[in-house]
Structures are given as C-alpha cells and as structure tokens.
C-alpha cells in the first residue's frame, strides 16, 4: 500500500461531549486562511507525492463553504496529483452541513467516498452529546450522498453509553445497515480524560456502562454486521467485501503517510511526527514556513516493532505480517516478546493466521489492550510530554 495523505480541518459547529480529536468550536475564524495554510503545508510537505489514498477529516470538513472545499481539493491536486494517483479519496461529512452544494463540490473535487458522522439515531442521545443534528438530518444526509453519486459511503456510529439497551442498539444498527452503506464504523463510547464526558466522570457525574454490558453490545455488533454481510476487519470497522477503507488499512499495516493540518501525524518507518496542535500556532507556522511541526519521535526498533502489533492486531482477520515486521525493524518478534508471546499463543489470545502472520483470537480481540500490555517491552519508557 502506497503512501497515504491525510488532511485535517479542525473546526466543528460545537464540540461533542465525548470528542477528543483535534477539533474546536468554530468561532468565525478565517476559514480561507485555514485553507491557505493547508495548501502552504501541502506544497512544502506533500509536493509531488502522488498518494495512493486521501482522507480529508476533522473536525468537520463540511464546515468549509463549497468554494473553499473546492479550492482545497484543487490546490491539493495541483501539488500532489492525487486525482490521478489515488485509489480512494474519502471526506468526512456531518449531517448538519453536508448540503447539495458541498456534496457537489466534493464530488467535482475528486472525492469518491463519504464518511458520515451519524453516531446515533436517537434524538435524545444526540442532544445529550451536544451533537448539532438529529436522526432525520442523518438519514437525509445519507440519501444526499447517494443522490450525488457517492458509491462508497461509511456511516459512523457509537454504542455502549450507560443505559444503551441492546435491542435499541440492534434496531439502530439494522436501520443503518438497511440503508445499504458499503462500510460502517461502530465505536464503543470511550470516556477520554480530556473531554466534557471525562471531566464529568472525574466529578462522579458520569459512570460508564458496565463492561459486561459493553461486551454484549460489542458481540451483538459483530453478529448483526456479519448477518448483513459486513465483515469486521478491524476492531470497530465493518465492510462489505472489497469495501474496507484502504486509507485506514495503511495505518493499521504500519505504512507511511503524510498528515497535513492541526495536530496531524505523519509516519515514515523511522519517524513519527506530529504537527502543532494549537490552531493559531499551526496556521502561523504553516503560512510562514509550510512546516508546522510540533513533535518528532524516532522510536527505537523495539518500539517500532511493538507499534506494528499495537496497530496490526486490530485487524482480527489479517493480523500482523511477521516478515514485514522483521524486515522493517531487524528484530524477531518471537525473540523480543519471549515468554509473553508463548503464553498468549498457548492460551489462544494470539493465533497464527498463516505461517508468518499473527492475529488475535476471539477472546484476544475483546481484550486487546491486555494483550498489548503483556507484549509491551519492559524498557518502553514513559516519556512525559
């Protein structure tokens, strides 16, 4: 899989309560300037790149007015020639702003796949999370994507909040699958520390759902999706045959990519670099030098090997390619992981998908964090940021 190109737009109408992306409520910041800055960065960091996949994410890219979306895509193509090189060009869209003009601009600009932030079909739940749309807007947005000729559409959903009833979830999920998207991403609600939800949890005002219940919903999700012909090729990603998201697969396979925009990460085999995370600082730096770098990490080979498992074990079918891991790091996973490796294989949490491929078993998938914890080499230091 060739290099991926990720483009990040940091603005949203409002910040959702669970969200810990690099996204900020838009308060009339100059969107033209954001696009200018992205194009500056693209020119410097992605010039002549010819990406295999493109993903425009956020934030809410569709917050940009149609002409700016168009200017962004044209500008990116001028620098990277993605329209000629890419096999998949995704743009995230939120129901409240994915209107006909924007849909048209995206289509004309070279986007061939839409990832729609639906999250829930329960209006009360959407409101509780400070989402700015209701379920009908989401239904309409999905239809609109089809009307504008997007033949590949993903729908994002969230399950597992306290009180999320299994039958209610099944109904939501089945309705969405009934729209016949090519792909659904079903995320269990995660309570991240740096979010409104996380703060509420710390103050004791929010208690996550019981983990047995969340497991029931997780199992149900895989079962319902499978019954509708959607394979769970990643922890939270389900796709019809041939419809897996190539851009994201490149992350999970530890490929290389360039990330543009606020807080975006780029990876080459030896380096992980992250852009400045403050929108104003990033804009300044991008406009001034085209290189708004924040932090650069050059992980040692053991860490890189671990990272390959951290990402690759998320793929319960294909798993981690050991030959590739050895080539890339010069290390033999079996040797590096030692006892933990053998224990995990013995108890079935890890299994061989092929002679040179390791993946998680059914139980291992549900306890992936524990599996990773056991694989984590002791020397991995905690570096405070």
């Amino acid at each position: 899989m060739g290099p991926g190109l990720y483009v990040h737009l940091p603005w949203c109408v409002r910040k959702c309560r669970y969200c810990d992306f690099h996204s900020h409520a838009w308060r009339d910041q100059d969107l033209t300037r954001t696009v200018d800055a992205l194009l500056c960065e693209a020119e410097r960091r992605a010039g002549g790149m010819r990406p295999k996949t493109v993903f425009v994410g956020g934030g809410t890219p569709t917050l940009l007015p149609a002409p700016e979306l168009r200017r962004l895509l044209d500008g990116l193509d001028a620098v990277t020639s993605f329209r000629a090189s890419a096999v998949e060009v995704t743009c995230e869209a939120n129901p409240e702003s994915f209107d006909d003009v924007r849909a048209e601009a995206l289509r004309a600009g070279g986007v061939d796949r839409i990832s729609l932030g639906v999250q829930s079909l329960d209006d009360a739940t959407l409101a509780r999370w400070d989402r700015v749309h209701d379920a009908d807007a989401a239904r309409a947005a999905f239809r609109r994507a089809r009307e504008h000729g997007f033949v590949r559409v993903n729908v994002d959903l969230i399950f597992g909040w306290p009180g999320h009833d299994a039958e209610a979830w099944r109904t939501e999920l089945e309705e969405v699958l009934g729209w016949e998207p090519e792909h659904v991403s079903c995320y269990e609600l995660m309570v991240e520390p740096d979010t409104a939800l996380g703060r509420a949890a710390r103050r004791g005002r929010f208690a996550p759902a019981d983990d047995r219940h969340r497991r029931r919903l997780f199992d149900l999700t895989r079962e319902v999706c499978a019954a509708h012909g959607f394979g769970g090729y990643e922890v939270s990603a389900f796709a019809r045959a041939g419809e897996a998201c190539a851009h994201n697969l490149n992350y999970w396979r530890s490929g290389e990519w360039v990330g543009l925009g606020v807080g975006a990460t780029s990876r080459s085999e030896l380096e992980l670099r992250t852009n400045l995370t403050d929108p104003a600082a990033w804009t300044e730096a991008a406009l001034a030098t085209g290189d708004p770098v924040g932090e650069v990490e050059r992980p040692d080979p053991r860490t890189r090997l671990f990272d390959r498992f951290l990402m690759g074990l998320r793929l319960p079918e294909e798993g981690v390619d050991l030959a590739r891991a050895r080539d890339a790091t010069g290390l033999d996973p079996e040797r590096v992981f030692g006892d933990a490796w053998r224990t995990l294989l013995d108890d079935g949490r890890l299994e061989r998908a092929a002679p040179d491929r390791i993946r998680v078993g059914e139980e291992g998938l549900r306890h992936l964090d524990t599996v990773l914890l056991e694989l984590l080499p002791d020397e991995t230091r905690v570096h405070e940021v």
Partner: protein
Amino acid sequence: MTKTFPPERIRNFCIIAHIDHGKSTLADRFLELTGAVEPRRAQEQMLDSMDLERERGITIKAAGVSLTAEVDGEEYLLNLIDTPGHVDFAYEVEKSLQACEGALLLIDAAQGIQAQTVANAHLALDHDLTVIPVFNKVDLPHARPEEIAEELENTLLLERERALRCSAKTGEGVREVLEAVVREIPPPQGDPDAPLRALVFDARYDEFRGVILYLRVVEGTLRKGDQVRLLGVGATYETLELGKSTPEPTPVERLSAGEVGYFVSNIKTLEDVRVGDTLALAKGAEVEPLPGYRDPQPMVWCGLYPVNPGDFEDLRAALNALKLNDSSLVFEPETSDALGFGFRCGFLGLLHMEIVQERLERESDLDIVQTAPSVPYEILFSDGTTRIIHRPGDLPDPNFFEEIREPVVRAHVLVPTESIGAIMKLCSERRGRFLRQEHLSSHRVMLTWDLPLAEVIYDFYDKLKSATRGYGTMNFEEPRFEAADLVKLRILVGGKEADALSCICHRDAAQRRGRAVLKKLKKEIPRHQFEVALQAAVGGKIVARENIRALGKNVTAKCYGGDITRKRKLLAKQKEGKKRMKSIGNVEVPQKAFLAVLSTEE
C-alpha cells in the same frame, strides 16, 4: 548564656497536655517573651524542628530549651521541655518528667480534659512533680473555663483556684504563667559539690557531630574535658562539648546540679547509648545509678517490603538511617511467599508506624508495600516455655502449644454522656471488659475498659471518633498478656495462600473478619481476564468466599495514525502501575490490598 545560676535560680519544667492543646505554641510565646528569639525571626511551633513535625503540626520528640527571665527582680534560668501529646509518644513525656521538678498541665479551654490530659497529669504526679494547671485558648469564643475547672477538680483532684488562664495564641496571661513557674515550682535540689550523677533524658543523632546526649545534672558538676562513664552501657567518653539550647546550641564550660544541657563526645550511633542511663565521672567514687526508664516496647508490627525486589538492600539502609534518630523503631528481615524479602518492623503505635512509613518514602524514594499491622502474641508451650511472636505466619500448629496470649490494655475513654451507650457497645463488641465509669462533669464521663490491643489498632479510633462525633478521646496503659481463644485466619487468592494477608483473630470473629477482608480485597484487586476466587479459612475450613468476576472486555475502540504514540504511552503507564503490584499466583494484587486485613466493612 555562659552566666552561671545557683540552683535556687533554676527551674526545670515541662509542658504536658493532650494532643493539640497548645504546648508548642505556648513554648513559642515563652521564647518570645524572654527574648530567646526575636519575634520577627520566629516561626510557629519553633521547637518542632523535624520536617514531619512541622508538616503535621504535631510534636513527636520532646525538645528542651533554656531561657532566662526576670521575675520579682531576679534573673532565673528556666529549662523548658516541650513534650508530645500523642499516646504513641507517651514515653517521651515520661523521659521529660524525670528531668523536671514541675509541669505545666495545659488544657484546651474549649475541649476540656481529654484522655492524655489525665494520663500525663497522673504521670507527673506519680513523679512527685508540682503540677500547675493552665487553661489555654481562652481566646476561643466557645472556651468554657468554668466547666473545665469542675472537670479538673473531679478528675484530677486539682483545686480550681490554682488554675491559670492564658492564650498561647494572643499571648494573654502568658507572663503570669511564666511567673507561676518561678514561684510555684521548686528549684532543683542537689549538691553541686557531690560526685557527679547526670540523667541522660534524651539522645539525638546529628549528621556532623554524632550522638548528642541531653542531660539533667542531678548532683555534682560536669566540666568540659571530663572523662565520663555511662553506667548502664559501661562505656567511657571524653566530654568534648557541653552546652545549652537557647534554643541555638550555646557551649558552656560546665553544667552543675539542677542544670540541663547537651553533651557531645565521639559517640557513633544511638545504639551505643541508652536514654535513662546515668552519666558519672570515670574516675572517683562509685555512685548509684539513677532510676532511669524502661525501654518502650514495640506494640504494633507490620511487614515492609520493597515493591521492586532489587531494592531490599536499599530498604535496609533506609531503615538503618531512620533508626539513627529513632531508637524505638525495631526491625528484622523476613520473607513472605507473596511479597518476597522484606522486614518485620515494630512500632510504638499506629501513628509511629505511619510516620516511619512516611519518612521512608520521603527520605529514600522507595516504593514500599506495607502489610496490615498486628500486635505481638505470647505462646505458651506444653513444657512451660513461652515465646513472643509478632507475625501471624509464626503461629505454630494448635497441636503444638498450650495457650496463646494477647496484649490487653487498660483504656480510659473520655466521652460526652450522650455517647456512653455507643461506646459501651463498641467496647463490648471489641471483646472489652468494663471496669468503671467516672463523671468528669455533668456531661462528660471517663469509662475504663480492658481491651485487647489487637482490637484497638483495628480502626478503634475511627469508630470512637464517629460514635462521639469527634469528642471522644482515649488513652491506654502499658499492655499485659492474657490468654484468649485466637486462631489464624488464612486468606487464599486464586487458590493460593497469601501469607502476607493472613491474620490472627478471635475464633468467634473469624468469619465476620474473613468476610470483611474478602469484601475489601474484592474492591482493591482489579479484574483479571479470568475469574479470581477469594477464600478465608481457619485451619482447613473455608469460612468465607468471594469471587472477582472476569473482565468483560478491554479494547480501545479507536486507534488511527495519530493515536500511536499516545496509546503506547498509556500502555507503558499501565505497565508501570502493574509493576507496582505484587502477584499471588497469577493474580496481580495492588499494594493497598495488603492492608485489607484491617477492613471492618461488613
């Protein structure tokens, strides 16, 4: 202060009281009033010089200081000792009393007479000291000196007319207290020309000068350069330096009968000396040793283990360092199946234990697991011999001994009358034996019970405080051993016995105790990928069981290109946390769980 004072111009006194009644604060006022420290250089509780004393606002070690004051036109030398109020450090008070002719008995005018007030007053009277009662904190709006005067008469048989009133905070009445010290406390007796006898009433370790002894010269005169002998330990030393704390150490040429001061020689460690020993001249007439003190016996024991097994030697070094200036701390190596190599440590009480642990963590930067505290037990064997054990694991098989005896203390509990019922219930639940009830005033009483010490260290204070809405206080006397029907309660985690969690308890309480421990463990042990069985057993019989159900799932929903570093760091942090746990079989047990044996949650 190189000036010398004849004995009739010297007063040796200490300040005694219940905890927090204002002893150290009153000492501050004395220091200011007599010009020993300039007010602008003063800190609060000047004599609390250890970091820990300053942070916690309590006195742990008695501290002496010499002051001069003019009273009735004459200049006097006043040797003052500020003492700790907490029961764990009662032996510090006892030491101080022997160096004094009088004591200021401080009573918080709002709180009134409390358990340590009674205990310390009795100690002072037993030592034939002149006791001057002082009501402190009269500035408080809810001060009730009249009522307290009544308590004073009823409980301590001290006439209310003798009581002084002051505020150590505002300084009101402090001068009068100082004058009373001069007028009422007798000067030290003792002939400065008799053969030297000096009492070692305290000893401290100083990094630069080695051990410093604090002396009260009872008879005779000690001069710089004298060869002296410690009669008890039988060692001879040269008097390199003599001095007085004013509070700055101030060298003097000699100390005569009645005087208090410090002594420096080349004494390496506190092990080489004994507080309570008598110091005499190496040459000259044989003298009788002074009465001295008993060594305090450690009554609370617990295991301390390094989290990282490699830190064992560092922990030993850290304990040795603490022992340099805390001779009441005792320890010996021990091993535990669950915790590996560590030390069994003995303390004067729970506060002492807490303080030692805090100092270890602060001063040595080691991660330490502490096991639940327990008391010593005396085992009587069939052949009539006895042995003291201080860890549950050492309890022999019941077939091999006749009797097991536990320490029982006589406890004096001071409570408001409305809490009598609650306290009676608490004490009888704790296997207590009621002795008597005395009225301090119309609404306060002193209850005297014999209580097993094991029950006292097992959250008795918390229960006492909550049963009396904070008003109850308690003191207890030196324990004695009494036979009891005790058994070893074993705890099994995932089928494996966790020796560090087992405890000795009364047969009738074993089941209740077992349930409580398991409940607590269930709360503290994180869920594993498998189910974890918890069991409590007496002998081979399971008396309680619990299950920690398996973790349902544990997988991060989202992980894309930008999340790698963060996710990896998060895992590394969790791994660090895991490293701080101890494993029993394949179950990871956090440090806190090893204190679960203390739990009384039902």
